[in-house]
């Protein structure tokens, strides 16, 4: 499941460095574990072609969408 995750050794330190966020070894271990779980389905989500989904303008979650 984690095969499609970009290496946390690159993604996470690079992201943290870009934003100036400090992390110790424990932080990095937690982030790596979370990354391994989250990234593969996230990549699948990004790969979903939703181009034909007409955006819902200011959706009112208390009601159904206008069809």
């Amino acid at each position, binding site marked *: 499941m984690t095969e499609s995750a970009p290496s946390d050794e690159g993604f996470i330190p690079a992201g943290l460095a870009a934003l100036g966020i400090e992390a110790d070894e424990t932080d990095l271990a937690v982030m790596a574990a979370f990354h391994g*779980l*989250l990234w593969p389905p996230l990549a699948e989500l990004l790969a979903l072609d*939703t181009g034909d989904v007409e955006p819902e303008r200011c959706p009112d979650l208390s009601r159904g969408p206008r069809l």
Partner: protein
Amino acid sequence: MSEPLDMGLRAQAAAIAAGEVDPGELLDAALARIEERNPALNAVVETFPERSREMLAAAPAGPLHGVPLVIKDEWPLPWRAQRFGAAELMTPTAPGESGPYRVLRDAGATIVGVGNMHELGAGSTGALSYYGAAHNPWDTERCPGGSSSGPAAAVAGRLVAGAVGADGLGSVRLPAAYCGLTGLKPTFGRSAMEGHHLAPITNLIVSGPLCADAGDCRLLGSVLCGEELAAGDAAAGLRIGVVRDPVSEDVTPEVAAACEEAVEALRAATGGELRELALPDLEAASLAGILIINSEAMSGATPEKLNRLSPELSPIARGTLKYAMLLPAAAVTQAQRLRTLMRRRLAALFAEVDVIAWPTVPAPAPPLDAPVVELPSGTRSADQANVRGAALANLTGIPAISMPVGLSEDGLPLALQLQGAWGADELLLDAAEALERANGRRWVDAVPPLAEASATEA
């Protein structure tokens, strides 16, 4: 009459209204019960007897007059800021009159304590909290569910008959399932939320009741919604949609059997029908919910704040907060597009069925020290497994209810979830009550071992 504290919410309110129970004595009994049982449950993180007595002294006549309740550590009270189960929040909090506090006060209720919760609302087990883990009254070595862990454990342990939780990705329904309770996630925007630190920005989180049965949820839910969730016969001829997907199939055999039996009982009781439905992209919808709630929770976060996180935050919270800062904006945009797609799919489905049913959780409560579940697909973290069936209602805004439908071989509750169209909260309560009648209230009246002593003494 049974011990007043062991009655349900409606019965307590009715007995007080009839003059059969003194509300002052009931409050004292609740405080004593908390003192007696809370060491085993860690369900209630703070009591304030003088404040509670002041509330009672000033309580107006109302549907909950004199009834003691617990509220989750997610809203401020006039004398206490919420901690959100954490040592530190990204958004400042302060004491104040939150929406749930106001509606409870105006209904005559007495807030007797604040309920524990999973740290930052970011988990479905209740195993992690600034206050320490809450424990499941059915087995105190097991997770009570989360993030409304304390409210659920408090009601199941008969410390109180009702509690207010919050549901952002299942946080009322999941602990209800683990603790053998009924929990309602109202339609988005219908229940009181003011004062929640994310209220101005959230499109996911709602307040909701946790009680023993649907009738009690109807009473407390009506107070939270500021309007009567009227009982009716809307469930007659109920068209039940069943989704054959991981949410129904990647579950333990006990969960599958109990939920199938319950769905069939509900169909028979309502003279309804079952329809098989296809609802693609449920896994992606769960992730969409996670991404959106993460983006809401990170509101106000800055790299500087993340570099100054309290050392009292758990390592998991520290790491996940920092990781959330790295998530690509494109993913959140894609999540919102998927939300639109799922809302449209649901709107079309709800033209064909009245409710959609699947197990609330794929497995009963796991151990607190190893919150993982064994499913046909393999070993998963409970959080990963639970969000799959819970997130859709939050993502799309629809109401959902969880109700107990059995016990596992280990004596742990099993639960069914029903989801309805926007505004169909009353229908869900009607359906849950129909199921209770059909199974002779066997599961809503079941008492966990920790609470059995007082129930049998009465």
